[in-house]
């Protein structure tokens, strides 16, 4: 197999991981980590220019996953940069050891490998394996700090994740069994392109059961209520760059899996329509998360719940279906990845400055650290759906299109959005304004990734580049 970008995007992390384990000194490994991520991103980005390889039994590239892959590698890069400037301080405060840092960087690459593999795989079995790989690696990173809370979080994540894994596997097996009579035994019946090609022939009842299991299994990773329990703690107790990656990427990967199978369902007329299920789960997650936002005392948990909320919105949008809603869903997903990871970058610096994650101890950031504070304000307002971020555009599309189709659902959606908006605004007002309190250590984390993300958010919100629109529209058509 020649060294095409796909292979590169997968090989680089695989090669980098052992290197990182061996590299002495965390600085070197940190920047090596950055370099590897940069290389991966370059490889992924080159997928735009070169013509796409034909789908094989294991890997393939189409309009849908290329968006995910590029986004994934990009945020992976920025997160790596942030982590490189951030993690050193953790060493000074003694929260981590050099050894665990090596391990951390290696795991970072393995996680990137898992996610890229999951996104590129043309094979539902391979996708399953890859998602699990990514999950397990993140589990280990969540537990990095070895505090009781961290272990608690990691353990919770691990157990719920494992059950999710099992259920997803059963769904995968069912899909295989439904395909096996048509596509024959063995690998062919697991190849995505074959499946979608002959979706109409598959046994609808089998598909239904399979979809339920896949939805629950992968939905656990997406963090949909009521399968969300691992998410807030995992975000709150792990290292902040990992929280950024979790919210920005892992959720997307799981969502991608759900979308794939949704397409399969949609392609089979006799099967149960996946829409209502997704709409229900989406609204449930939205309302639930919005309600939970009010009582948060920990800034990272706050935004973890906001991730659940936005996953709810996205799943709702895809559940509604139709070109506009799907477009909105994709856009919202991209925007959420960029914005939420930006927010976690900001929070990383904030927690280092204030030496705490308690919301009550963080005050007047725009006063004490204007560059950081205002960035946080912009990012939070963007995630809350304020223009000129793309989130506003996607929410505009979702609400306007769904209201004329099914008013009740739209009203529930709007209610949830307002609830969440109020909560975020309440917290933001406290955090960003007023007279600063608490300790004020120097800031290590770099602001470059943060502002870069914000620039992208605003740019896309005001003027989406043509090619991007083209993909989104074709993908929206694919999703049906």
């Amino acid at each position, binding site marked *: 197999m020649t060294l095409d970008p796909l292979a590169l995007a997968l090989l680089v992390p695989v090669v980098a991981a052992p290197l990182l384990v061996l590299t002495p000194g965390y600085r070197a490994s940190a920047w090596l980590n950055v370099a590897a991520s940069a290389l991966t991103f370059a490889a992924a980005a080159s997928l735009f220019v070169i013509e796409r390889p034909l789908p094989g039994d294991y890997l393939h590239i189409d309009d849908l996953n290329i968006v995910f892959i590029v986004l994934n590698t990009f945020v992976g890069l920025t997160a790596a940069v942030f982590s490189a400037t951030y993690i050193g301080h953790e060493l000074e405060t003694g929260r981590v050891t050099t050894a665990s840092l090596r391990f951390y960087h290696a795991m970072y690459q393995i996680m990137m490998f898992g996610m890229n593999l999951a996104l590129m795989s043309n094979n539902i079995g391979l996708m399953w394996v890859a998602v699990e790989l990514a999950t397990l690696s993140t589990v280990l990173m969540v537990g990095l700090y070895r505090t009781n809370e961290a272990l608690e979080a990691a353990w919770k994540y691990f157990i719920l994740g494992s*059950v999710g894994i099992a259920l997803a*596997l059963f769904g995968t097996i069912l899909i295989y069994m439904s395909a096996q*009579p048509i596509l024959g035994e063995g690998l062919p019946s697991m190849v995505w392109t074959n499946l979608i090609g002959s979706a109409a022939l598959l046994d609808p*009842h089998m598909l239904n059961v399979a979809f339920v299991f896949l939805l629950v299994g992968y939905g656990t990773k997406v963090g949909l209520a009521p399968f969300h329990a691992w998410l807030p703690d995992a975000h709150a107790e792990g290292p902040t760059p990992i929280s950024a990656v979790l919210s920005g990427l892992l959720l997307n990967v799981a969502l991608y899996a759900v979308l794939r199978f949704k397409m399969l369902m949609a392609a089979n007329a006799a099967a149960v329509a996946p829409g209502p299920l997704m709409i229900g789960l989406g609204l449930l997650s939205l309302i639930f998360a919005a309600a939970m936002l009010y009582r948060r005392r920990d800034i990272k948990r706050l935004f973890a719940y906001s991730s659940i909320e936005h996953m709810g919105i996205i799943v709702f949008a895809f559940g509604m279906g139709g070109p506009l809603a799907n477009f909105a869903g994709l856009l919202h997903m991209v925007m959420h990845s960029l914005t939420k990871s930006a927010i976690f970058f900001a929070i990383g610096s904030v927690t280092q400055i204030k030496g705490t994650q308690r919301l009550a101890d963080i005050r007047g950031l725009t006063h004490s650290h204007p560059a950081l504070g205002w960035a946080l304000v912009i990012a939070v307002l963007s995630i809350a759906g304020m223009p000129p971020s793309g989130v506003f555009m996607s929410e505009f599309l979702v609400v306007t299109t769904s209201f004329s189709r099914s008013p009740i659902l739209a009203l529930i959606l709007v209610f949830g959005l307002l609830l969440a908006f109020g909560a975020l605004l309440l917290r933001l007002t406290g955090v960003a304004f007023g007279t600063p309190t608490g300790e004020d250590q120097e800031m290590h984390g770099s602001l470059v990734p943060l502002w870069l993300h914000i620039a992208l958010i605003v740019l896309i919100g005001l003027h989406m580049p043509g090619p991007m629109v083209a993909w989104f529209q074709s993908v929206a058509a694919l999703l049906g």
Partner: protein
Amino acid sequence: MHDLSFDIAHMLAGSLVLVSFMMIYQARLYALLNAFAMQAFLLATAVAWQAYIRDAPHLYASAAIALVFKAIIVPWALHRMVQRLGIHREIETVVGVVPTMLAGMGLVALSILLMLQLTETADSALAREDLAFSLSVILLGILMMVTRRNAVSQVVGFMSLENGLILAATGAQGMPFVVEISVAFSVLVAMIVIGVFLFRIRERFDSVDTEAIEQFRGEKQA
């Protein structure tokens, strides 16, 4: 293929479900572990049988894994643990055995109902019933996880869940990755067991005094 082989496979699969019920029925940990070992053994046999009747040699591998790892090592390890934690006498069920049994019945009924709705195809008779059995094993496994307090019994529950998965995977004709999957799951289980060992997890699963947990929750409850 003659019918006998079907019937044997069928019988083995059914007996897995039976053993799951036995596990639910067992309140004491030692008995539970023994039951689980039995289930693992049955699974190994079932997989081996599938390997034989379909002459799919790679399945022998996963049969072996099931036998060695799950029927022997893990039960033994858990046995040790129970002794170490000194919990072999505790009654660990959250809800009484009878309601749990009834719930189990319901689950089996549900899974059979679901699987019988599948459209009849040529050779899917066995597949359908196999699926029904493995689905019920899976559901019973989760049921066990949620109705037992103790970490060990929950590990056992998880593993019986996974038994059901392996059963389904082997039942699916010519499914790739079965061996890899069983390996992956063995690793998973190993990690769980180690985890239970390392941080004496039982409180983290569940405990009588909730205070002990909440001091590990990031946010104290107001």
